[in-house]
C-alpha cells in the first residue's frame, strides 16, 4: 500500500543544530510504514522549483498514528520543508522501499548511526525494543550539539557515542568504536547502519573480516521514488539496483567491496 495524499503537520520540534522534527497526521502511512522505509515529500505545490520531491526516512510512528521525520537542512528543498509550520499540509507518497530485515530471535542487533543517519535507526531501535530485543547503539556525530535525543537514547539501550571533534565522548569515527566494544558482548550479531558514505566505507572491512551481516540505508537522487524511472540506480555486486524500490536497504557488502 502506497499513499499519495496531503497530510497535516501536527508537531514541529527544532532540535540542536537546526535539525527539524515534523510529525504528520498520516494514518495510512502509520498503518503500513516499517523501519527503513521512506516517504517522498513534495517541497511545495505552488512553485515550479524545487521541482522534485525529497526522499526522507520514516523516523518514528507513534501509537496514535503520528508519522515523524527528522530532517537536516542541506539545501533549498530540505530548508523549505523544515520551514513548514504546524497546520501546513504537504503531499507525501509512501511508505516506499524495502524495510530493514528483522533479526532472528537469538541475535543481538547492533545499530550504527552517523549524523542524520539516526533518523531511520531510531525507528528501528524502538521497534526492536518493542519486540523484546536488547539492541546496542553506536552513534557518531560531528560535534556534541549534533547528537540528537541523547537522554532518551541513553535511557532505552546501551549507547556508545563518538564525535569528530571529541567535544563529547570518544573522538573519531563511530566505526572505530566497534571492534573495541562489540566483543565485550557475546553471541550472534546483526548490524544495521545509516550514515554518510565514509562511514559505510570504514565499516566494510570490519564487517567482511568477521563475516557479519550488515544492512545499510543507501542514498541516491530520486525522481519517481517508486521504481518506475530507473533514475536512482546504484551500482551493486549484482549490477544496478534501484534505491527507491530494491532498496534503500541493502547489504553493505553488496555495495562496498573491501578496498
Amino acid at each position, binding site marked *: 500500500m502506497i499513499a499519495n495524499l496531503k497530510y497535516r503537520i501536527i508537531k514541529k520540534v527544532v532540535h540542536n543544530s537546526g535539525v527539524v522534527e515534523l510529525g504528520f497526521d498520516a494514518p495510512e502511512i502509520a498503518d503500513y510504514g516499517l523501519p527503513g522505509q521512506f516517504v517522498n515529500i513534495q517541497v511545495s505545490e505552488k512553485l515550479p522549483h524545487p521541482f522534485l520531491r525529497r526522499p526522507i526516512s520514516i523516523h518514528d510512528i507513534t501509537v496514535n498514528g503520528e508519522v515523524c521525520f527528522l530532517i537536516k537542512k542541506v539545501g533549498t528543498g530540505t530548508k523549505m520543508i523544515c520551514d513548514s509550520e504546524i497546520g501546513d499540509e504537504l503531499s507525501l*507518497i509512501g511508505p516506499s522501499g524495502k524495510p530493514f530485515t528483522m533479526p532472528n530471535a537469538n541475535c543481538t542487533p547492533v545499530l550504527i548511526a552517523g549524523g542524520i543517519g539516526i533518523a531511520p535507526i531510531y525507528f528501528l531501535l524502538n521497534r526492536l525494543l518493542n519486540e523484546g530485543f536488547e539492541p546496542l547503539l553506536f552513534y557518531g556525530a560531528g560535534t556534541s550539539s549534533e547528537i540528537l535525543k541523547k537522554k532518551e537514547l541513553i535511557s532505552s539501550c546501551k549507547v556508545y557515542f563518538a564525535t569528530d571533534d571529541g567535544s563529547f565522548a570518544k573522538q573519531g569515527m563511530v566505526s572505530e568504536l566497534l571492534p573495541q566494544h562489540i566483543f565485550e558482548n557475546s553471541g550472534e550479531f546483526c548490524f544495521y547502519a545509516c550514515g554518510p558514505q565514509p562511514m559505510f566505507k570504514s565499516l566494510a572491512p570490519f564487517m567482511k573480516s568477521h563475516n557479519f551481516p550488515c544492512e545499510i540505508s543507501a542514498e541516491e537522487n*530520486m*525522481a519517481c521514488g517508486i521504481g518506475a524511472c*530507473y533514475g536512482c540506480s546504484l551500482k551493486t555486486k549484482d549490477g544496478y539496483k534501484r534505491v527507491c524500490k530494491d532498496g534503500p536497504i541493502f547489504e553493505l557488502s553488496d555495495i562496498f567491496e573491501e578496498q
Partner: protein
Amino acid sequence: MSILETKLGPVIFRNPILLASGIVGFGEEYRELIDLERVGGIVTKSISLLPRPGNKPPRIVETPCGMLNSIGLENPGLERFLTEKKQFLETLKTNVVISIAGSSIEDYVEITRAIEPLDFFSVLEINISCPNVREGGILFGKDPHLTESVVSRIRAVSGKELWVKLTPNVTDIGLIARVAEEAGADALALVNTFEGMAIDINTGKPKLGNVIGGLSGPAIKPLAIKKIWDVYQAVNIPIVGMGGICCWQDIVEFMLAGAQLVQIGSALFANPKLPIIAIPKLEEFVVGKGLNSLNEIVGKVIID
C-alpha cells in the same frame, strides 16, 4: 462523444493526455498512485532489443525548474518485456503506446516485427531522440537520411499507428519533421529532452555520472512550444506535444501551438495526480469558451 475525446487515425483517445515515455515505466508501479484508465493513454519506457544496464549514477540532478537525466535507456529488453511487462499492459483499459529504441536500423525493425502481432497496443512510438546513449538513439533523429531510413523501414513492416519522437537538438526541426512525414509517420511526438550538463563547483566534476544528460520539466516549456509551432507549420500530420507540462493551462497552450495530443513527463514525479486534476479543468475550459470540443483549438494561436 465527450468534449475531450479526440481521434488520431483510427485510434480514439478519451482525452488528449498521455503519460510520456520513461516516466511511468510499464505502468505497474503507478497503478497505486493514479487511475491509469482515466488518461488518454500511456507510453511505455523505450524498449531495446537486448536489455540495457543504463548509465553510471548519479542519473538525476535537479536544475532550476527542471531536471537533467541520464538514465541511458535502462530497460529489460524485448524478451523480458514480452514475458514480464506485457501482462499488466494487456489488462489496461486505455491506449497503450509502445516506445522502441535501437542501436541500428535492424534493431528497430526486429523489435517492430516481434511486437506487431500484439493487439493490446495501438500505437508504436519510435524513439530516435534519446540523448543518453552512445550508439543509435539521437543520431537517427539528428540526421535526415537516417530518419528517413529508420521510419520507412519500420513503416514497411508495421500496420500500427506510427509516431516518430523527435529531438529538439537540431538546427531545423521542420526539416526532420517533413522527412519523417514523407517516410510514413502518422504523427510526430515532440520534444524529447534538450541536451544539458551541470558541474559541481566544489568537486569540479560533472553532476551526472554520464557527464551529459537531457533537460526536462517546466524549464523547457517555452522551448518546446516553439518547436511544436515550427513543426506545426512544416507538416500536415498530427503532433503529440510535450516538454514541461505542469498544469491544465499548459495543455491548452501546447494545443494552441499545434499539438492534438499531449504527454506529461517530469511533472508526474512532482504530482502523479496532475493528469486526473487537469481533466475536469479542461472540460470547464471548453464549456467556458463555448466550444464543442477541445480539438477545435489545435493550432489556433492567433497571430495578428
